[in-house]
């Protein structure tokens, strides 16, 4: 575990301990499992966001994707009587298609990721609202969906399925990001796309791949979110969720300049955000301060990280080996 993740884990435990002392209910099994459920829901798409951020891009569209894909998912199930496994596959598939589209616009049309996904944010939301005429979509009173509902939002051995799915997704994506050729390419491109291209890497395909992963994971998260709320009101479903994802990734050590970040960090970042939300409720802080608390903690985290980085850089400057020192001194002199 790198220093950054250890620090984040320490912060998470410290915040948890303090909250637990102030209100022991925080550490009750019920509360912890509720939090685990939310961490699962938010963690899955935050991982996708983090991977896009590692390429030096950003995906602002995930929140609107939830509304758009959620509408599609419920429509398939209720109005078109599509069997639920097919509906889930189609929803995830639709997320992948949107990811491909955005990836192509970013890599082929060379549009800025911020612009592409901002347009996505506006378009998907609009499409969802238009299709439903702004009406809330739900499952009605039938119990045809009990089984799939249980699968998506139920619990086994007391553990929420969303959390189990997050663990599975995180493990898979950990291998992809930290052990696979594709993952190495993502980091290399995030740090220096030009050099990666000169090394024969198909940079466009790799970057587009990151958007595809983000879209696919957003599709998967849609299914969980739909069963979490049991309905989709297209004007508000998933609003601001892209910001939760970006916050989790940044808190977890992803640099918006690209090339930095880890799966463990993103998951810990998600967990910290959810703990903060829970803490606001459980300590009786007015829930209107919810975002403000989150913002403050991220800001303090970023500042602390900066200070630690500078201290480390100074320590290296003082203690570096002579060979490396001489090398560093020359950096300015070479072209």
């Amino acid at each position: 575990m790198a220093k950054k993740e250890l620090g984040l884990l320490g912060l998470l435990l410290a915040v948890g301990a303090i909250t637990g002392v102030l209100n022991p209910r925080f550490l009750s099994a019920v509360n912890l499992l509720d939090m685990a459920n939310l961490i699962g829901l938010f963690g899955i798409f935050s991982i996708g966001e983090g991977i896009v951020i590692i390429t030096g891009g950003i995906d602002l569209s995930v929140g609107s994707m939830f509304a758009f894909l959620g509408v599609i998912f419920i429509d398939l199930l209720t109005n078109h009587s599509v069997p639920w496994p097919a509906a889930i596959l189609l929803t995830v598939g639709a997320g992948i298609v949107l990811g491909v589209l955005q990836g192509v616009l970013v890599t082929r049309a060379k549009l800025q990721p911020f612009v592409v996904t901002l347009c996505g944010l506006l378009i998907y939301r609009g499409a969802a609202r238009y299709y439903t005429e702004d009406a809330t979509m739900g499952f009605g009173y039938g119990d045809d969906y009990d089984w799939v509902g249980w699968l998506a939002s139920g619990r086994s051995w007391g553990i929420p399925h969303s959390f189990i799915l997050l663990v599975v997704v995180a493990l898979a994506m950990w291998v992809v990001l930290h052990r696979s050729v594709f993952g190495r390419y993502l980091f290399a491109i995030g740090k220096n796309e030009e050099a990666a291209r000169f090394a024969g890497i198909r940079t466009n395909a790799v970057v587009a791949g990151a958007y595809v992963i983000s879209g696919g994971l957003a599709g998967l998260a849609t299914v969980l979110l739909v069963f979490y709320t049991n309905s989709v009101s297209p004007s508000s479903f998933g609003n601001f969720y892209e910001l939760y994802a970006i916050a989790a990734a940044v808190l977890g050590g992803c640099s918006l300049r690209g090339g930095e970040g880890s799966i463990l960090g993103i998951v810990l970042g998600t967990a910290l955000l959810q703990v903060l939300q829970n803490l606001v409720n459980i300590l009786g802080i007015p829930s209107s301060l919810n975002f403000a608390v989150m913002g403050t903690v991220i800001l303090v985290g970023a500042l602390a990280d900066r200070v630690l980085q500078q201290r480390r850089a100074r320590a290296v400057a003082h203690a570096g080996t002579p060979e490396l020192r001489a090398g560093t001194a020359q950096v300015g002199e070479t072209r």
Partner: protein
Amino acid sequence: MLELVKIGRRYPGVVALDGVDFALAPGEVVGLIGENGAGKSTLMKILGGIIPPSEGTIRLDGVAHAALDVTQATRAGIAFVHQELEVFDNLDVAANVFIGREPCGFGPLRLVRTRELERRVQPLLERLGADFGPRTPVAELSIAQRQMVEIAKALSIDARVIIMDEPTSSLTLAETDRLLRIIAELKASGVAVIYISHRLAEVKQCADRVVCLRDGRVAGELARAAIDHAAMIRLMIGRDLRSLYIPPRVPPHAEGCVIRNLVPAAMPEAEVSLTIRKGEIMGLAGLVGAGRTSLARALFGVDPPRGGTIALHGTPVHIRSPREAIAHGLYLVPEDRKREGLVLDLPLTQNVTLPNLRAFARRLLVDPHAEAACFARERARLGIRAADGSVPAVTLSGGNQQKVVLAKWLSMQPRMIIFDEPTRGIDVGAKEEIYRLMRDLADAGVTILMISSDMEEVLGVSDRIAVMHAGRITGVLERPDFSELNVLRLAIGAAAEVA
């Protein structure tokens, strides 16, 4: 006017400067030479107040200081013209010259007085003989013109000492000449210039005195009459430079790379035909803008060619991307090492395995042990000086970085390697190692194209020299015909006119 006495600068375990004495008189041009890491930049940073010396005194107009800070240095009229130009290309010339010191009105808004700004910049530009006005956007200027903006900036603070760090590294010959003329004018008006350069011919041309640093000490000084190439090189390396040429052990044979009527996308007016033999080092000379780098980028597939054919070791190849070039065993050691050659923040090992990562992976999962073994092998073969493969490439010196770039390609199966300015910014010792490597590769049957603007290198290293002018090969010289004059004549297109 300015005198540095017994200046030392220590870092833990390293002495960057040790008892350096350096004096400067008004209107004097001093050439400061030395290998990379000799301490030139450190000395100039002390002079500019960017870092304090560990010991010694700085005497400025008779007043002794233990150290200068940036404000003191600026007030004393010490100005830098940086190696990597520090201009704002989103602003115009006048704004750049007075950046941070804009004449402005009173009141809380402190509006910039644009007209006065221009009025003050105009004479500076005239003094330099600039062919652009104060309102020209810097984005429209060439590198040489941007340099004039920096010099104008120095003049605007009434600089008495201008420090120029490798000012001509990106200039054409004509631009270099103009810079040297400007230096002469500065000198005539009493401004002293410290001219740091690896280009000894220019130093010889403009310097009144040469000071050479070596390993943090003054290795020697040369008075105007004593400045010549051999003497400067002797001071820099402490020994005579052996002839650079290493004759091939295996005579070149067969056609390695045959280029026919190639039109680089970046230069549609160009058309290149050239045959490079397998096992030879073909030098490619020419002035900046002749199309040499465009040709390299076309061959490597960075900007796929618009027309023409390439055959490599007898088989025609169609290259549309670096990926395809690499698949054919055609590699490029790019001019811009930091942007195109390396991912500076990644560890050395990962840099080396990047183009061939799949060979170090099982079922698409990277095997770190195989990677480490590869790095260890290449480090031993190339003599890369680094603690281990986990340090980021940014911590290495230029020469070692270049060896890491080479290690990327040598760990694969090269058939042809294009070197674009292979030793730019690299010290003399590392240069020789790279020349030897190039020769070893050629002897092993690799086709080598070496683009270089360094005349000594082109004449010393190549088996044959192709010269480009305006997008065409104007001639190919055999070793008996090698001379600076012949290369230059072809480079300015004179031979074409004669013929």
